[in-house]
């Protein structure tokens, strides 16, 4: 064979951006400019309705201390001056984005800009009155908790290649059974355990139908959601109407962590919560480490990306998928328990209100990573708690309209407004051994 000389030419120009797009989130410079223009638009809102339209003598008072934290003075902010100052800062951030040459880190800068807007918005909302900033944050954490559990459940399932649309149903089942068992026994821990078991049961159903019979995972998941809704409504009527005492469970009590809970502002929000909230934090770390640092995690991700490759090195694809889908059910069931024995107590009809789907969106927004999902869950949790705050303050916006805000954010996220993300390679694809 005659020899063809010369070195292999370099791959014609896969620029740095493209390579990153394969491993992370792809951000084109055009999108970065778009973000910048968006921030300048926000700055205009901050100057006009939040700034100049507000009487110059009005101030907003943020309460910054609450037990058990040490006391710090309240933050008094003149509305007009603060808004205009923040608007200038936000516009500068926007200009920085527009003139950027590299897209690296743009999301961080963009997030900073939107935080400035949120601050200005809060000042505007709280004009002429006082706003308990600490409890706003604390509520954010509480609302975020089930979403964190849900997104972790999604991560566990989808990293192994199974789409878990059934999170919503697992939430409902977990919330219901946790309430029932905790009411009957008076033991919240037993309630949480049974909530997890209920989730696991629905996880097993999803696994069985989609892995054993190769049924479409999305359809099975949606059906499980509908089934769980119907079942809990039925049982609610059958059991709880006649025995209301079975639907008045004890709830997990807050445990203040010595020292940390004394930190002003963040202390009461993060370190004076109940076991279910702390559980979410622990699970977050454990799942992250297990997924990215252990042999188990490597195998799970291999199965989710390229199951055939995994099976040719002797990994049992279906076994891993079964395990993960059921584990995902356990986690979602715990998230369900957070609705009842983790905060509200009583089980009510459809009390999860689609947050299972929001959790799924959080997972996508977080790029199928536990901590990415955390960020998104906090964002959603914040928007929910903000909505309830605004309701209390009696701002002149119809409350059903406000209640839509978190879902609108979800739609925007899912539609990819905030960047293209890449799911695991074999996500939702049934596996058949050849």
């Amino acid at each position: 064979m005659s020899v063809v000389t010369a070195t292999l030419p370099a791959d014609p120009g896969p620029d740095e951006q493209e390579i990153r797009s394969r491993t992370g989130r792809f951000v084109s410079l055009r999108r970065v400019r778009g973000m910048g223009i968006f921030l300048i638009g926000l700055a205009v809102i901050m100057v006009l309705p939040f700034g100049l339209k507000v009487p110059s003598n009005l101030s907003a008072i943020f309460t910054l201390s609450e037990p058990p934290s040490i006391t710090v003075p309240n933050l008094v902010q003149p509305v007009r001056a603060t808004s205009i100052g923040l608007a200038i800062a936000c516009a500068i951030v926007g200009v920085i984005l527009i003139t950027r040459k590299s897209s690296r880190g743009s999301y961080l800068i963009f997030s900073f800009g939107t935080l400035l807007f949120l601050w200005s918005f809060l000042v505007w909302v709280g004009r002429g009155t006082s706003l308990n900033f600490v409890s706003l944050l604390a509520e954010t954490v509480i609302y975020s908790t089930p979403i964190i559990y849900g997104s972790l459940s999604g991560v566990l399932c989808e990293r192994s290649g199974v789409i878990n649309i059934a999170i919503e149903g697992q939430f409902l089942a977990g919330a219901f059974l946790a309430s029932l068992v905790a009411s009957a026994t008076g033991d919240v821990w037993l309630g949480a355990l049974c909530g997890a078991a209920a989730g696991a049961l629905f996880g097993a159903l999803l696994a069985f139908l989609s892995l054993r019979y190769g049924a479409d995972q999305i359809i099975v998941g949606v059906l499980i959601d509908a089934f769980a809704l119907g079942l809990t409504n039925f049982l609610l009527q059958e059991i709880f109407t006649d025995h209301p005492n079975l639907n008045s469970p004890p709830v997990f009590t807050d445990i203040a962590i010595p020292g940390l809970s004394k930190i002003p502002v963040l202390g009461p929000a993060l370190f004076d919560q109940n076991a279910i909230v702390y559980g979410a934090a622990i699970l977050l770390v454990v799942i992250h480490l297990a997924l990215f640092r252990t042999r188990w995690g490597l195998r799970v991700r291999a199965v989710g990306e390229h199951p055939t490759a995994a099976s040719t090195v002797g990994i049992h694809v279906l076994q891993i998928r079964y395990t993960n889908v059921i584990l995902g059910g356990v986690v979602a069931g715990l998230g369900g328990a957070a609705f009842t024995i983790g905060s509200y107590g009583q089980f009510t009809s459809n009390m999860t209100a689609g947050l299972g789907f929001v959790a799924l969106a959080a997972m996508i927004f977080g790029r199928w990573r536990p901590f990415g999902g955390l960020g998104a869950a906090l964002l959603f949790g914040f928007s929910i708690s903000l909505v309830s705050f605004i309701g209390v303050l009696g701002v002149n916006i119809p409350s059903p309209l406000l209640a839509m805000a978190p879902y609108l954010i979800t739609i925007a996220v899912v539609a990819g407004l905030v960047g293209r993300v890449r799911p695991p390679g074999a996500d939702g694809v049934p596996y058949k051994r050849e």
Partner: protein
Amino acid sequence: MRLELDGITKRFGSLVANDHVNLTVEPGEIHCLLGENGAGKSTLMNILFGLLHADSGEIRIDGAPVTFADPGEAIRDGIGMVHQHFMLVPVFTVAENVALGFEPTRRFGWLDRRSARAQVRKLSTEFGLEVNPDAVVETLPVGVQQRVEILKALHRDARLLILDEPTAVLTPQETEALFHIMRSLKASGRSILFITHKLKEVLSVADRITVMRLGRVVGSTAPAQTDEEALATMMVGRNVELVITKPPGHPAGTVLQLEHLTVSDERGVTVVEDVDLEIRAGEIVALAGVQGNGQTELAEAVVGLRPVRSGSLRLAGVDLTHTSVRQRIHDGLADIPEDRQLDGLVLSLSIAENLILDQYDVAPFAHLGVRNLSAMRANGDRALNEFDIRAVNENVPVGTLSGGNQQKVVVARELARRVKALIASQPTRGLDVGSIEYVHRRIVEARDDGAAVLIISSELDEVLALGDRVAVMYRGRIVGIVDPGVGRETIGLMMAGGGTPSAGNEGVTEHVGVSAGEEP
């Protein structure tokens, strides 16, 4: 390792895929298994690797009988397989892929990533398989990905390596580099079972050759005792023309004219830059180049699947630069696409339906918006005979055909029209010798009927066999148009971006890929 396959038989329903196959691989031997698509090579290898189970027969390793329930057991007994479609997780690093399934761990299943990396480094220095353990696999060129596959097998301590059509996806340079690696593995005492249907490769690298046809072993030989013609005859069962004899063309006026054509990819990067090319009626221009230098995008732009950024495209004087695909088909452009399964055929539709994809809505196949199925079937039946498509009848889904027969369906459809210009991208990729001969003959016939033909191929043999003129593309530009008579070396050099012929060609080739990314 001494491997013996003794009387292996495997049936799928009434089809006998392997019929009492006997094969012996000695330690430190490169053993080639040669056969056309469908000869039963893959079935045999899947049995050997534990993916399928033989109905009868015995596998012996170093004299002792073994059975494999799954690939894990085959791996444990020292068999490694490099699959034709790589079994690599694209988003994992090299080290993660190599470690997967046999991960070095500390307590609690904690991954020992340092030792995984060290393991890759050690193996790659030992066998000259240079690769960065931290590189993400999907960003690597195909040739390097293949090295990762080989590393995977070595990491599991494979003493017999099965390479399933390893060169199908490689450039000539990468192929040479692979052969070098194979020789160094052989020198370390490992045995290699090399599956291919490329005759040149067999002769240059094999110690022993076993030829299969229709599920049977039809002969066994060594390179010194045979030549390409003899091997091809054994493989196909009849005499085949390896290099098509092509009468000189009679080119007339210019039909296809590209002027300053510039095309970008999805990300806006220029991939075809300022290309000027004229193809005359009755002429074949072969566009040579290493994959990924803009040929694919050029072909897509010409057939209308990709927008032209600047420049123009004319067919027989008509400006087609911004017209639709449909318009171009109407104007006499035919296209044999690079990926027939993706762009050429609808696999779940029947042969007859695929044959009229371009004219399902016009007479005689439709009348007043109602399809005429009997005309379609008659057309299909005719094409089966005329184009020698091997199928039960015209109503079977095209996806059930072999690669060669699928390509014949594409060729039959495209050449059924009145063709002024034919664009054929990698027209014989993955085809067996018999089908290659057939497709080549058809393309030359199209030329002799007065079509302007543009062949895009990364196979030098094909470029030289078909081209009346050879245009070489490198990094989006045409670096030269030459007569095929200038020889392989010159064209090979141009494909690599010019450069000067250096002394010790062999040495340069061996390091191909290692220096990928550097300017020549």
